[in-house]
Every structure is written in C-alpha cells, then in structure tokens.
C-alpha cells in the first residue's frame, strides 16, 4: 500500500509517500524524522491539533482562545468542540491553565491559550 500525503508538522509541507508492507510502515520524501512519525500516524489514525475559543466574562473581549496540549483524533474534533461550548470562564485567567482534562480519554488536555486580565 502506498499513500501520498502532505506533512503538516511544519510550514515546509513535504510531500511524503507512506508505504506499508506486512504491517511495517516506511516513509519517503520527509525532510525530517517528525515527518516519518506524522506520515505513519496519518495513515493509521489521523490526528489534529485543535484550537478554538470559549466564552469569558469580565475580560476585554468576549472569547478566550484555547488549544489542545497535543493532537487529537481527527474524528473527535467536533465532539471536543461540543464539550467546549458548555464551558465558561471568568477573568482573570492565566495562559496554560487546563480547562478540560484528558478530554474523551485521549490523554490530551485543553488549555487556555492566553492570559486575560479582569476589566470593568
């Protein structure tokens, strides 16, 4: 099995070919080792980083950005977003605070992505 994909790990975007034979995966075209890891992962179980926003009160803006601590299974993104829809925070908040722990048992946390002070 041969699969062509574009690596998304860094802005280079190498064109990677993933080959599978007898359960062993190899990659060509990746400029670094991370591309090898990505290529294989993408072929078996694609994962994506998730960034979004949640509601925040008493801050300079109405939304606070959040980010996943690691890539999540691609098919779970909308489920995680649905969980985030029910979360609200109040300023002040500090960057890197965990607001969802081990979301959907993925081992991945959702973190606050910036500090926001309380404003009147």
């Amino acid at each position, binding site marked *: 099995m041969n699969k062509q994909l574009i690596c998304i790990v860094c802005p280079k975007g190498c064109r990677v070919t993933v080959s599978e034979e007898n359960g062993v995966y190899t990659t060509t075209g990746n400029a670094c080792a991370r591309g090898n890891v990505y290529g294989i992962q993408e072929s078996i179980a694609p994962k994506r980083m998730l960034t979004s926003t949640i*509601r925040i009160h008493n801050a300079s803006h109405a939304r606070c950005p959040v980010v996943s601590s690691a890539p999540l299974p691609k098919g779970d993104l*909308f489920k995680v977003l649905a969980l985030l*829809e029910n979360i609200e925070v109040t300023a002040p908040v500090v960057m890197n605070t965990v607001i969802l722990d081990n979301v959907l048992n993925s081992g991945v946390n959702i973190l606050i992505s910036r500090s926001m002070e309380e404003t009147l």
Partner: protein
Amino acid sequence: MFDIIIIGAGIIGCQMAYTLSLTDLSVLVIEKNTEVLNEVSSANSGIIHTGYDPKEGTLKALLNAKGARMYRDLCEKLQVPLMECGSLLVAHNDQEIETLQGIMDKAEHRKISCEMLDQNACRKTEPNIAPSIIAALYFPTTASILPWQMGYALIDNACQNGVKLHTSEPVIKVERGCVITVTTPKASYQAKMVINCSGLSGDKVARLAEPDYPITLRLKKGEYQVTDKTEASYLNHILFPLPTDKGKGVLAVKTVEGNLLFGPNSTLVKDPFDNDTTPDGLAEVNEKIKDVIIPLPQSRMIRQFAGVRPGSPTNDFIIENHDHWINVIGIDSPGLASSPAIAQYVLDEFIVPTLNPQPVERSVYVHQKPLSMMTHDQRNALIKKNPEYGKIVCLCEDVSYQEVADAIHSPAQTKSIKGIKRRCRPGSGRCQGGFCEAKIVDILSKELGIPKEKVLYDNDDSAFLTPMEALYETK
C-alpha cells in the same frame, strides 16, 4: 394633523424640511429607509455646478445658478465644508474649442465668470491633466460638497426646530380629501399639503396620489471609482469633458475630505434600485477618465460605487402643485446645486399662497466640527472634559469614540454602520472598515443599548452578526 408632510429625506427633502422649519408651519418628514440621505443623495458627484449648462427657459436653468449662489452663505451658516476649487471644462481639438467659446458666451450671459486657458496654463494649474488637452474653460466658482454633510446639517436643524422625522416608514397609501392622508405600515398621518420628493420612487409615489399620473422617470445609472484622501494633491480642480446628450460625462472630482472621485458613466436602467457596479461600467469609467486626467491604477482606488439618478422624460425638474399635492421629482443633475433654490421656489410658489407661513427666528444648530479639524488646544480642551474624545477608533480618518457617540445622538439620529460612515467617516478610508468596523459595532451596541447581533449595517433588515452560540444546537 400637520401643515406639511414631506415624503423622502434625501437632499431635497432635507432642504425642504430646513426651509420650512424657519417658518411657523408644522412639518413631518417620512423616510422609507432607516437612514436619511440613503439613495441618490449618497451616490452622486457632489458638484455645485455654476449653472451655465442647463437649457434656457428650463427650471434647471432658473434654479441651478440661483441655488449655486446660495451655497456659500448656507455652508457658512450651517458650518458645512465647501470645496471651492473651481473647474476646468476641457477641449482636445479646435472643434471642441469652438464649443467652449459658445459655452463661454452662454456663461457670460448668465453672469457666471469664466476664463479661457491655453495648453500651458492648463498644465500649470493642473499638472496631471490629460496630455491630449489643448485648452480649457476655467470656472472659478464651481465647488463640491459631500451631499450628506449638507443633508445632515439641514435635517439636524430641521429637527431641532421642531420638524418631526420618521424613518423606516415607506408610504403605501395616499387619500385625498379636504386633507391628505398618508399611510405607512406603522400609522396614518394627515396634512394640508404634501411634498413628494421621494427621488427614485418619485413617479410611483406620485401615482399613489393620482393613479393616472402619466410621468415615468428616466433612470440613469452612473458608476464611480474613489481614491483615498492621501491622493488629494493629485487633482486641483474638478475636470469636465464637454457634455453630450448622455450627460456631463466622466469627471474627476475633488472632494472636501480629499478623496477623489472618477466618474460617472451613464446607462439607462429599468430598476431604480439597481445600483450594482458592473465590469463594463467600471471599464468605461477607467477608459473615459483618460480624456481629462492621467489615470491612476486600480490599486490606488479604495472603493467603487454606483448611483441611479431619477431624470424626467423632458430632462427638466418636475416641480408642480396638483391641488395641495406637490411633486418635486425628476431631480437629477444639477439637483444638488439647485436644492436651496428648489426649496425656496416651492415655498414661494406653492406654500406661501396657500398656507401663509410666518418666519420664525431660530438658533442655528451646528454639530461639533470633527476633532481632526481642530487645533491641538481645542482638542485637548475637549479631551480634558471627556477622555473618550482622545480614544481614536478610526485610524484612517482620525475619529474618536465620543464623536461616533455624538453622531448617534444627533438631532436626526443615526443608528447604522452606513449612517455612521456618512456622519463622521469611519469606513470611508483606506482600510474600508478593516480596523474600525468592529469598534463601530461596539459603540452602536453600547449607545443604543442593543446587543451586537441587532446592530444594523444599513436598513432594518441588515443586522449581520450571529452569536456563535446560536449555531450550537443546529449541527
């Protein structure tokens, strides 16, 4: 019960309202859009023509020169900026120079000053003039305004003087009897006389009063390109090619704020509200502008717009009184320049003999001038009193938070993004709302006490923000 109902708050309606507000008559202005000055009045060249052009014996000939002469005093009284830059009517060959001579005679006969310039003089006074121009007629008194700046000054004063203004109310029915009853979806109103200055709807509204009214307006669309105000020094005067039967032609216009206008072309349209810009129209503007000026590239334009003008089949203003129903329609060019004289004419010819109004002494409402035009000391005095005058929300045009709030609460009120843009400039600059629109939404939301999802862009159906949460349930 009112003495007068004015239908339409474009420049004509606002001028009419102001003129009548200086008398003891009770006046109601009914405007179909959410904002005043929303149609023809905010999509034209803004030129105060001197009056040499209209055919002898027409109302246009009578009222253009008269109106133009009233502008300086009116602008001074109401503190409306007037760009007195003069104009050049250009010629490219001997035949055109001959036509200029004829126009020169006509102008002199009407006591409008002008002077013939040769090629060198043209180039000297207008360095970017088209190289093909060999002579021009210079009219020192041609001027330009931003029509809505005049319109707002007029309607604010009218409101302060007691005129009632109802917006978002289209007229749907008219009944004639010993009084005239005008009905909108919200209410019915009665008046002794009605002035129909509903612009693009002029003939349709006339037919509400007289089902057999025979006039159908000749609608002409004109498209324009607009530059940023940083290009102001590219042009010194308003530039005209020789007029044709299509109209005054594609012009280069200097405005009071510094933006330059290039346009309009002229195409007949059926739908009065078809104000789309078109590839052909813009291409025509881009081509024909070369007859008057060395063109600027597309990348130096910040906006395009188009306006439909309601002309009459006779190409003259229609200003008539049919038994207490006054039509002031078919007001296309030189309508803006004529507008003060039009209002005076309607008052003198139709209203005075019928209602015998008495003049009333009124104080003049002058909206605070933009802080960008004040001295530092004047600005600081205001900022000391209210720090929101020091918070700039519009970077391109230098407009503060409080000035936007003031515009919202002006006598004639403003409640939409487009209205704010016309009132005090945010959205008119190089960023076209990129930096400032979200802030204007904030201010409208706060000052009107409405959630952001109810803030209007233009008319009542133009709210445009949806809270993210509103989509949470659906997918």
